[in-house]
C-alpha cells in the first residue's frame, strides 16, 4: 500500500479503521528513508528505534479505543537549530557538533503533546545562514525532485524531507526566507507565521528580531493542523509571543471550504489579491514567469480580483535585511566561545587565544563572513544600521497601505528554480539575492506562505502569499484555494489534451 501523500486526517482514519498499524506505517516511512536518504541527505540524525517504539505504543492506544491527539499518527522532523531534549543540536556547525540539547523547544513540546512523533533532525546551513544548505558543516542536502540540484536553504533538510515523503511535516526556522525558499525549490508548502505567533524558546538565535519558527508540509490542511498546535497559548508569560486568543486554523479552514461549497461560491469569491509591481520587476527565470502567469489565471478562475499594488521601499529590503541580521548575528553568536560548551580549541596559551581559536575552528566561512561584516557595521557603519531600521519602518507602512485595499498579496517566492551545488556559493552576492523576494515579510513580521505552483513536469516553483498580521486563517484559505485551483487547472489541461 502506498501511503504517500495522505493527509494526517487520512492517516488517522486508516489507523482507527485498523487498515494499517502505526508500526507498519512508520516502518514504510523508515524503509523509504533507508532507500533514498543516501541520495538526498535531509537528516543529520534519525531516531529509528524511538519511532518504532512510539509506534507500538500508539497501536496499543488504538487497540484500547482511546481517542487520538491532533497530530497522532504523524511523523515529523525538526531543523537542527531547534532543541529536542537529549538529542544533538548542531546548528549545522562544527562549533556545536557534539552539543546535546538539555531541554525541548516550546513548539516541540506542543507537537509532542498533540502526539506528533519525531523522526530526527534535519540538515541546514550553518546557524541558518545561507540559502542552499551548502553551508552546512556536515553535508549538502540534495533536491528530491532532482538529485543534481540543491534543496534550497537554510531549512533545506526540512524541505527535502517533506518532499521525499519522510514524514508528514517538518519544523523549520525562517529569518529571511529560510522556510519559504527551500519549500519553493522542493515543491512543498512552507509557512512563516506572523512574528510572535509561535514561541521562539528553544530556537537557536541568528537574528531574533526576525527569527520565526514555521512549518513545511505536503498540503495546506496538515499545515493548518500543525499551526493550530504550535501557536502560542492565550495565557503565557512567554514574551516571544504576542498576546492573542488562539485560532482554530484547521476548523476555520474546513468551515471556509464547506461554507463556499454550500453557497455554490468560488473559493476566492470577493477576495482581492494585490500584485506588487516592484516584486515582478525583478528578472525571473522563464519557468518562474510562466508559473506566475498560470497561477494568476488560477486565482481569477477561483473568483479573486487581482489588483496591481506598489511597495515603494521594497527595493531597499534586501540591504536592510542583511545589515540588520548580520549585526544581530554578531551578538547572538558571541556566546560560542568554547568555554562552557561547544568546540574548544585543544591548545591555547591564553584565554584570548583559546576563545579566538575555538571560534576560528568552530565557525565555517559563511558565518565568519557575516560576523566580520556585522562587526564592521557596528564599528564603522552605524549609520547604515539606522537606515536599515528606517527602511523596516517604511516597509511596514507600505504594506499597511496595501492591505487597506487587498486581502492578500501574491509574489513569486524566488525568481529562480533550484540550481546545481556550487553555482551560487562562490559569490555570496548571488546567494544573497535568492532571498530578495522573501525578506520583506521578515522585515515586517508579516505571515507568508510559499505554495507550489509550477507547470506540470517542470521544476518546482513557489508562489508566495502574504497576509496582514495574524491573518493566518486567510493566508491558509488563499493557499488552499491555490492548491485546489492548480489541481483543477492540471486536470482541465489533461482533458484538453
Amino acid at each position, binding site marked *: 500500500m502506498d501511503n504517500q501523500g495522505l493527509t494526517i486526517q487520512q492517516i488517522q482514519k486508516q489507523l482507527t479503521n485498523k487498515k494499517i498499524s502505526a508500526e507498519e506505517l512508520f516502518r514504510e516511512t523508515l524503509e523509504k528513508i533507508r532507500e533514498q536518504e543516501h541520495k538526498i541527505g535531509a537528516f543529520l540524525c534519525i531516531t529509528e528505534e524511538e519511532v518504532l517504539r512510539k509506534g507500538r505504543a500508539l497501536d496499543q492506544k488504538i487497540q484500547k479505543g482511546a481517542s487520538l491527539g491532533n497530530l497522532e499518527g504523524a511523523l515529523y522532523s525538526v531543523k537542527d537549530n531547534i532543541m529536542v531534549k537529549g538529542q544533538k543540536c548542531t546548528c549545522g556547525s562544527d562549533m556545536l557538533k557534539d552539543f546535546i540539547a538539555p531541554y525541548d523547544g516550546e513548539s516541540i513540546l506542543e507537537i509532542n503533546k498533540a502526539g506528533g512523533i519525531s523522526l530526527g533532525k534535519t540538515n541546514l546551513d550553518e546557524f541558518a545562514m545561507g540559502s542552499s544548505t551548502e553551508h552546512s558543516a556536515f553535508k549538502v542536502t540534495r533536491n528530491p525532485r532532482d538529485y543534481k540540484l540543491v534543496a534550497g536553504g537554510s531549512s533545506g533538510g526540512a524541505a527535502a524531507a517533506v518532499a521525499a515523503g519522510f514524514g508528514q511535516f517538518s519544523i523549520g526556522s525562517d529569518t529571511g526566507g529560510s522556510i519559504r525558499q527551500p519549500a519553493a525549490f522542493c515543491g512543498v508548502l512552507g509557512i512563516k507565521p506572523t512574528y510572535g505567533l509561535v514561541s*521562539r*524558546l528553544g*530556537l537557536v538565535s541568528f537574528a531574533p528580531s526576525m527569527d520565526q519558527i514555521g512549518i513545511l508540509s505536503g498540503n495546506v490542511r496538515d499545515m493548518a493542523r500543525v499551526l493550530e498546535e504550535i501557536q502560542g497559548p492565550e495565557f503565557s508569560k512567554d514574551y*516571544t509571543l504576542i498576546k492573542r486568543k488562539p485560532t482554530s486554523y484547521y476548523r476555520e479552514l474546513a468551515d471556509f471550504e464547506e461554507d463556499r461549497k454550500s453557497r455554490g461560491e468560488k473559493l476566492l469569491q470577493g477576495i482581492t489579491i494585490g500584485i506588487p509591481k516592484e516584486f515582478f520587476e525583478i528578472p525571473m527565470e522563464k519557468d518562474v514567469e510562466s508559473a506566475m502567469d498560470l497561477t494568476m489565471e488560477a486565482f481569477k478562475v477561483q473568483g479573486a480580483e487581482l489588483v496591481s499594488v506598489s511597495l515603494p521601499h521594497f527595493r531597499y529590503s534586501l540591504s536592510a535585511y542583511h545589515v540588520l541580521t548580520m549585526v544581530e548575528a554578531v551578538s547572538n553568536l558571541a556566546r560560542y566561545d568554547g568555554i562552557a560548551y561547544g568546540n574548544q580549541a585543544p591548545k591555547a596559551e591564553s584565554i584570548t587565544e583559546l576563545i579566538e581559536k575555538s571560534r576560528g575552528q568552530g565557525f565555517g566561512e559563511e558565518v565568519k563572513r557575516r560576523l566580520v561584516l556585522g562587526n564592521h557595521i557596528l*564599528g564603522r557603519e552605524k549609520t547604515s544600521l539606522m537606515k536599515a531600521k528606517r527602511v523596516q519602518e517604511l516597509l511596514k507602512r507600505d504594506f499597511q497601505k496595501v492591505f487597506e485595499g487587498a486581502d492578500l498579496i501574491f509574489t513569486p517566492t524566488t525568481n529562480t528554480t533550484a540550481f546545481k551545488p556550487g553555482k551560487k556559493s562562490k559569490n555570496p552576492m548571488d546567494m544573497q539575492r535568492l532571498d530578495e523576494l522573501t525578506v520583506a515579510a521578515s522585515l515586517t513580521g508579516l505571515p507568508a506562505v510559499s505554495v507550489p505552483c509550477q507547470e506540470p513536469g517542470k521544476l518546482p516553483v513557489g508562489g508566495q502569499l502574504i497576509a496582514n498580521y495574524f491573518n493566518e486563517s486567510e493566508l491558509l484559505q488563499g493557499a488552499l484555494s491555490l492548491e485546489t485551483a492548480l489541481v483543477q487547472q492540471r486536470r482541465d489541461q489533461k482533458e484538453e489534451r
Partner: protein
Amino acid sequence: MNYQTIIGLEIHVELTTSSKIFCGCKNDASGKPNENICPTCMGYPGTLPRLNEKVVDYAVKAALALDCTVRNNTHMDRKHYFYPDLPKGYQITQATKPLGINGKLYLEKADKTIGIQRIHMEEDTGKMMHRKESTEIDYNRSGVPLIEIVTAPDISDETELLEFLEELKNLLAFLEISDLKMEEGSLRCDLNINVVDRDRGIKTPVMEVKNLNSFKGAVRAALYEEERLQEALMRDKELLKETRGWDQKKGKTVTLRKKEDSEEYQYFIEPEILPLQLSDRKIQNAYSRLRELPQRRRNRFKKQYGLPDYDVRILTKNPYVADFFEQALLTCYAPKRISNWIMTQLLSEMDRGLEGFQDLALKPGDFGKLIALMEKGKISKKIGEKILKEILKTGEAPEKILKNRNLGPITDEEEIKEIVQDLLERHPKALEDYGKKPEKTLRFFMGKGMEKTNGRLDPEKLKESLVSALSPRDTDK
C-alpha cells in the same frame, strides 16, 4: 602648590531577590559551585532572558531613595566582550537609558551633596577560581541581579569618601534590597580618581581602582593614589589612563591594564526583552511605599525627641531599631530612657548587635511596658534587667514574668519585717555597731537586704522597717 583630588565611585550592589534576574534559578552565589544554574543563566543556545519584575522594584526603590529621576521608558542593552565568566559573550545591562538619573546624597558631616549620575540594572557574571594547574568557573553568580550606582566626581578627600560609603550603605541597608557584604562581594566599589594642579591648570588622567573589598581599603587606596598622582604632577611624569587593582597586603595599587582609547563594547538594545514602561503612577506608588529615609528620620529624632546626636546615630542605623524605638514610645513616652536602654541593656544582650533586631523575640510594646514599670518605680533597674533577659529568651510579657518568676516587689509589711528580723539575727556584730556608727550600719543592712531579695525590696520601705526594728534597742539603753 594647589592640588585638588577628584574622586567618583562606581558601586555594584547585588540585590537579594529570591530568583536571578533573567531566570528562575535561586539567587544564591554562595552555594556549592554550579549548584544554582540553568540553561538560561549558562547562556545556552536557544534560551531567552525573562526580566524579573522584583529586580525592577528594587532598583526603583534605590533610585528613589537616592533622589533620582526614574525614567518612564527604558530598556536593557547588550554590552559585548569576551571573557570566560561571561557565558553569552555579552552582559545584559543598561547603557543608554539607565533606570535612574540625576540623584544625590547629602553628607552631614562634610555638609556637602554628592551627585548620583545614574543607577541601572544589570546581571552579574560567573566567578573564576584560579587553581594551580587550572582555572575553574562557578556560574552560580551568573545572572545574579545587580544595580550599579555611579556618582559624579564630587568627592574631594578620604573623609568625604568614607562618609559617603557609610551613608550609602546605611541607606541601602534601610531599603533591605541587599545584604551588603563587601567581603563576599555583594557590595563592590570601584574608585575613579585624578588630581588637578590648580596653579598650573594641569591634571593627571583618571585612574580606575578595583578590588576594594572594604571601606578601609577604599580609603587607603584613595590616599595611596592621591599621593602617587600628586607626585607624578610634581615631577611632570606622564601617566596613561589605567585600570589598577588594590593590593591589600602590600598596601598599594598595581596596574591591571592600560586603557587605550575607550573600549568598544558595541552596545545595542537587547531585542529579547520588551522595553520597560513605568508609569508616573507606578513610580509615585513606589515612592509612597518607601519608608522614611534615614537622614530625614535622624533630623526628626533630634527635633521631636530631643535626643543627642550619638543616640540618634545608633537608633537610625538600622530601620528596625528606629521602628522599635518609636513603637516602644507609644507604650511609654520616655525617649531618653528608652534610648539608653536600647543602647546599653538591650544591645549588650544581643549577640549580633543591631543586626539582630529584625528577629527579636521582644516586642516593642513589651519593652515599653518594662520601661514604664521602672518609670513608675514598681521595679528596680536590676529587676528590669532580669525581666529583659527573660523576655529575650521566652518572648513572654513583662507582667507575666514578674508574676511567675517571683520577681515582683515585696510589699507585704509582715514579710518585710521577717526579712529584717532575719538580717539582724544573722549579723549580731553589725547590730552591736549600730550604736556607734548608725549610718554605716544602716547602709550595711540595706545592702544585705537588697542582696538577699535580689533587689525586690523597695529601698524606702526597707529603710523604714530597718529603722523601726533598730530603734527599740535605743530605748533599751
